[in-house]
């Protein structure tokens, strides 16, 4: 739902790096987005195409990697991955009697790298 402001920031950062590296064209951009984020891949690309029009990043492909959600058991501090369907988990796999967890990963919004010419 809020892809547009996120994409505007993304394009700004991509253009800075493109200029810094004297890129003629950006071919693809690899993103790491946490599973907890509700950003839609398809809409990210659509907005990206719109916002990047007329820049060196025009027509670049967004390669989106989803980072899994990691929770930490509040009893034994064990960290483990959970799928969105399993969230919140029933039991900690290590101490098994704990039912409380802190979400420690899954909210990322990173640009990892980009492929340029």
């Amino acid at each position, binding site marked *: 739902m809020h892809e547009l402001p996120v994409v505007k920031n993304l394009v700004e950062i991509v253009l800075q790096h493109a200029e810094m590296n004297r890129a003629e064209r950006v*071919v693809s951009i690899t993103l790491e987005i946490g599973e907890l984020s509700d950003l839609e891949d398809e809409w990210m690309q659509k907005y990206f195409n719109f916002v990047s029009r007329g820049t060196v990043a025009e027509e670049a492909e967004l390669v989106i990697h989803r980072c899994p959600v990691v929770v930490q058991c*509040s009893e034994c501090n064990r960290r483990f991955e959970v799928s969105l369907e399993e969230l919140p988990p029933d039991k900690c796999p290590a101490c098994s009697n704990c039912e409380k*967890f*802190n979400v420690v990963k899954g909210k990322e919004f990173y640009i*990892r*790298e980009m492929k340029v*010419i």
Partner: protein
Amino acid sequence: MYEKENEKSIGKNSREEFRLIEVKEDILADNKSEAQNLRNRLKQAGTYLLNLMSSPGSGKTSLILQLVENLRGDLKTGVIEADIDSSVDTERLTGAGIKALQLRTGGLCHIDAVMAARGLEALEAELLDLAIIENIGNLVCPAEFDTGAFKNAVILSVTEGDDKPRKYPLVFSICDLVLINKIDLLDYTDFELPRFKENLFKVNPGVECFEVSARTGQGIQEWSSWIKKEVWDFQQGKAQ
């Protein structure tokens, strides 16, 4: 500036050579630093900022009316009302003599730190003890943008169901306080408090919870006391 160490040649076709550039930047870094700047300024001014998030119709404005009424005489309070359009909420607040400002987001689904800062400036928040942002009614987007608030609260009304923390884990995992509203309707719904708290604590162990009703006034006193303590502790921290 040519960052040679961050770059390597990764492939060739007949004419072109691709280069891979490591970026490693947070897309929301701008907003995060704006939020931190805002927090620093508010700290200087001694103004405590609370961000209220919920679904549409959970009773945010009614609860704020009750809260501010309760705080009158103890804390100078102002409210930023964020809505996609219309100013009906602000009219309700100003009609009750509450200092309030309408932010029309024009379709945007959340408030970010820059918008919050603009709103607070127009509200002259530096003269207040407590500023409340009534975020857009939506459990999804507001959770991803730091507004610069010191604490985040989520309001959930019992008619929405006790499984909401399972459906919207992000917002329930980042909040510091949960208000369970319309508690007077509990008997007319299938909402089970123990089941809700179990769902909630799994993504946010030990988060503070208050059972409230904007209609009957139940729990408003407890919530007001919590806020007063928060604001006074915060202001004393500033004085130290």
